[in-house]
């Protein structure tokens, strides 16, 4: 099974080298999508030759769009499965084999989930619990952590969870679509790692995501 890792990166110069070099040892290929970073992210990624493809957005679109670009590229390169990993080292690449193993048990999608405890900053913990509960109430999808972006899926799984959101709401849209299209999914416990409490989704992003969820409830 050809597994390609897709890593979205926006201003990740500090961590991206470490993430890519560790990940590329565990998958067949790594695709980094530089989402118009203003730091050295692109230059760092271009240092890799073997096994790493770097794509670049001319304009910053958002994590959801970067992942869409990466996934399309991965299917073009003949991937059988895609694993999504954050570029800021929030996901431990050493867990990739567990994801692949779980997918090979016959699932279409495996969602990484974190234990929502004190290791997660308070605002993110509260937001995550709220959005996880809201996803369950609004769409009937049960998942312990709807915001964790560490995920693996095969092509049939991808078709069932394909998302439109270009920003942060993509993470929940994938979950909602997986539930709606009856994807065969499972969750896998992953580590909770936070290097920077101020990066990622903010309280306002959480509110925007919730409003988006309400619009999906009406439209989807």
């Amino acid at each position, binding site marked *: 099974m050809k597994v390609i890792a897709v890593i979205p990166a926006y201003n990740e110069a500090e961590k991206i080298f470490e993430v890519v070099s560790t990940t590329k040892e565990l998958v067949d290929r790594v695709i980094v999508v530089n989402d118009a970073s203003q730091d050295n992210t692109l230059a760092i990624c271009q240092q890799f030759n073997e096994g790493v493809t770097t794509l670049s*957005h001319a304009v910053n679109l958002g994590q959801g769009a970067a992942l869409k670009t990466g996934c*399309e590229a991965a299917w073009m390169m003949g991937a059988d499965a895609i694993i999504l990993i954050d570029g800021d080292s929030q996901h431990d690449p050493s867990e990739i084999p567990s994801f692949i193993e779980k997918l090979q048990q016959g699932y279409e999608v495996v969602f990484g989930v974190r234990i929502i405890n004190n290791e997660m900053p308070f605002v993110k913990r509260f937001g995550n619990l709220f959005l996880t509960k809201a996803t369950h109430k609004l769409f009937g999808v049960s998942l312990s952590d709807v915001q964790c972006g560490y995920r693996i899926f095969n092509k049939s799984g991808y078709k069932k969870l394909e998302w439109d959101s270009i920003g942060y709401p993509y993470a929940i849209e994938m979950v909602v679509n997986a539930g709606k299209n009856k994807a065969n999914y499972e969750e896998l416990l992953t580590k909770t790692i936070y290097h920077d409490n101020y990066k990622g989704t903010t309280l306002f992003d959480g509110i925007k995501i919730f409003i988006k969820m309400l619009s999906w409830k009406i439209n989807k």
Partner: protein
Amino acid sequence: MKFIQIIGIIFALTMSYLNFLHFRRREIPLRYFIIWALVWLALFVFALIPGTTSLLSQELGLIGDLRTMDFLLIIGFMGVLGFLYQFYIYLENMKKRLEKLVRDNALKSIEKKDEQ
């Protein structure tokens, strides 16, 4: 003529000129040119002959100057909301087009590498 009337007339004439300029530069289509031209013409007439607002209010069955002002404010507010909505739809469409363009461009680099 009151000071506010002069301000209104200058503003309406300036906006009409800008509207015409953008139309001649082909930056706005004919229908938008006509809509905006009517808006600025109406403002010009109201500023030059304030009595027209009273005539309008009599025609529409509204009584008194206050009612006429209320009526104009409501019409103006509705117009602004309408334009806001149009801009919102336009921006959403532009966002989608931009996303497609940027993503297609990024993917083209793979196709080029494949060709090499």
